[in-house]
């Protein structure tokens, strides 16, 4: 009896651990309960079942966090909050100069808005906006899984120091069709990496090197930093749509993004120099799909997917007129200084806009705007 008691005692921690890896919650294997030790939040992207992917540049890790916010909601209430940054600062008990808004994303299931904030001392905070109020989303005592971006060997890394694998920052992160895609930069060498990581996370991690051809340039560029990207189906085929620092819009076939591959992208639009893209989303109005792009130095633009589908060429000639555009046509909205943009529901998009008086407002527009 005593032996049985001690045996049970010995396996108790394992039972507790197994019970913590909660398979019945609908989470995939690999999730554990605990403190993920998130050191920074660079980017957010929602995956299936209310799982939120968090890019942590400081620790070079991508976390999958169970938000337990998976109740479907068909329609979202328009979100409007004036002086958004002041309200965030007040909630955290500080001044606006002591916080930075890092990302803003909508849970596609619950339609709730999530906002990543960083304190001046580097402390990351994740907030959820419900009925115009902030809620803290705990980053400790949660179900999570993670993948380390810096210590996994890649097929094309043959030297012992890891070569190009180091990633100082995660510039953008997006989940699509069972993959988390990440664009990153080094703080030392001039290199831009793009990775595609299967989810649920395993030890297998593929790194794809992307090659693009700039419209205004007679050369291929391989290490231009990707600012933002999204995925879309064009004529039944899945594409990665990437936008670069000097704003060309480039398509990559998702079928070709394989480990170690060197993929040539097709430049379909040039939106002009002196600007860089910030966010890209897809909206629908009637039968038409639109790519909506927010920019650093230009208004929010819309591009018709039909025009992208119809554009079969790749921009190859130089653009001689300064600041001019070429390729797929676009329309500029009367909407400037939009620093965060995401789809709120099928008919609305939400954005953070810096107004001319300096205020930072959270606003919503619907697809009548398109």
């Amino acid at each position: 009896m005593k032996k049985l008691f001690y045996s049970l005692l010995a396996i108790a921690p394992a039972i507790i651990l197994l019970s913590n890896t909660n398979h019945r919650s609908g989470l995939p294997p690999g999730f554990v309960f605990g403190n993920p030790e998130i050191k920074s939040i660079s980017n957010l992207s929602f995956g299936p079942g209310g799982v939120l992917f968090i890019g942590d540049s400081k620790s070079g890790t991508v976390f999958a966090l169970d938000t337990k916010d998976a109740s479907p909601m068909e329609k979202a209430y328009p979100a409007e909050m004036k002086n958004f940054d002041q309200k965030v600062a007040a909630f955290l008990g500080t001044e606006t100069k002591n916080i930075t808004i890092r990302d803003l994303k909508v849970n596609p299931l619950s339609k709730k808005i999530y906002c990543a904030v960083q304190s001046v001392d580097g402390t990351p905070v994740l907030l959820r906006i419900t009925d115009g109020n902030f809620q803290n989303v705990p980053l400790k005592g949660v179900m999570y899984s993670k993948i380390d971006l810096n210590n996994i060997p890649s097929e094309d890394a043959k030297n012992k120091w890891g070569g190009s694998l180091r990633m100082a920052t995660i510039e953008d992160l997006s989940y699509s069709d069972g993959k988390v895609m990440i664009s990153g930069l080094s703080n030392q060498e001039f290199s831009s990496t793009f990775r595609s990581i299967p989810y649920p996370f395993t030890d297998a991690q593929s790194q794809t090197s992307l090659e693009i051809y700039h419209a205004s340039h007679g050369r291929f560029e391989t290490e231009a930093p990707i600012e933002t990207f999204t995925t879309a189906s064009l004529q039944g085929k899945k594409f990665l749509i990437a936008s670069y620092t000097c704003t060309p819009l480039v398509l990559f076939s998702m079928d070709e993004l394989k480990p170690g591959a060197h993929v040539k992208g097709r430049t379909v639009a040039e939106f002009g120099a002196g600007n860089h893209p910030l966010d890209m989303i897809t909206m629908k109005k009637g039968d038409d799909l639109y790519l909506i792009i927010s920019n650093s130095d230009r208004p929010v633009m819309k591009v018709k997917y039909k025009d992208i589908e119809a554009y079969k060429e790749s921009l190859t000639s130089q653009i001689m007129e300064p600041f001019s555009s070429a390729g797929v046509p676009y329309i500029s909205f009367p909407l400037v200084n939009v620093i965060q943009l995401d789809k709120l529901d099928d008919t609305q998009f939400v954005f953070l806009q810096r107004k001319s008086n300096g205020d930072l407002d959270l606003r919503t527009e619907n697809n009548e705007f398109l």
Partner: protein
Amino acid sequence: MTRFFRNSLPVCCKLFLISSLVLFSCCHNRPKSSTPAISLVWDGGKATGLLISKSLWADLPPDSVSSLVQVRLLYHGSQPPVAGEFHVQHDDILFSPLIPFSRGLTYEIRIKEHPAGLVLIPPGKDRPRLVAIYPDCDTVPENLLKFYFQFSKPMAEGQALKYIFLRNEQGDSLEHIFLELNPELWNQDRTVLTLWLDPGRIKRELQPNLTLGPPLVKGKKYLLTVLPGWPDQEEQTLSQIFSKNIIASIRDSICPSPATWSFNIPGRDTEQPLRIHFGKPMDYLLTLHAIHLLDPTGKAVNGTSSVSAGEKEYFFKPDNPWIAGLYKVQIESRLEDLAGNNLDRPFERDMGKTQLPLPGHSFYEKVFEIQ
């Protein structure tokens, strides 16, 4: 603060504020044997919590603490309760805010809606300093790719382009010179910032290059300026302006070649440094991180690396004396010069003419013998 006192608070509040701050100050200076009613919890220089002693909340049921006790920022207008967690531990309530309390700000503790005390978070003690800017040399190629800014303390992120300017000979600050990235490129402890000059303007024939011209032009002089006011992670700010003169020289489009480097070989049984002369300035951080030494048995040699002479020379001082035999210097191909040309490829390539190498494939090796 003075104007705030004059304009924003009624007389009774002013008196309360003054008395409480004084009270807090007295509490703070008490001998350790007596317990202050309210005290701060510090962790790594950050005020991460607030302890409220039982004397202030004795009549509260412990399970009602989070609803009856509030911490608010004392500020213009009404402020919501600071978000955080309450824990009752022994005789104290521990309040942990979501982010550390901000330096220089005052927080009010309210119990059952009544003021119970004020806490001023003292400003940080040491102000940050800009220790160095790399490249250290004054004359740089006109296609210079990046600057490194090294600070004495971890700095606040997302601030760089508010404080860093490049001015021309007329004193005008130049627009769209640096690549704006979010997040910025920092090392892990946030003491070294990497700032790229806009690569789209450096690469010839790219749209930004055609439209805005290259960031630097051969023969021109520039002044790189870092303004005071940039906060560190303790909300202390740079106190002094930092300027560096730069002269743009001819474009460098040639890959660095280890075959042309000269070596000063140290003596056997000494701890003299190995010196490698590159012949042209190299990237400061990459030089420190991409060069590795192996001893005659193939083991990594432990020691200290440094870069000097305007990034043209690399020194390696071993921890132990050199032994006789063949040493290997392995240089990762990612090592770049100031223009971003690495050992494998120049920064600008005509891909129609050359085969594309995949990055990170190789390293170069040089061998030297200690007699």
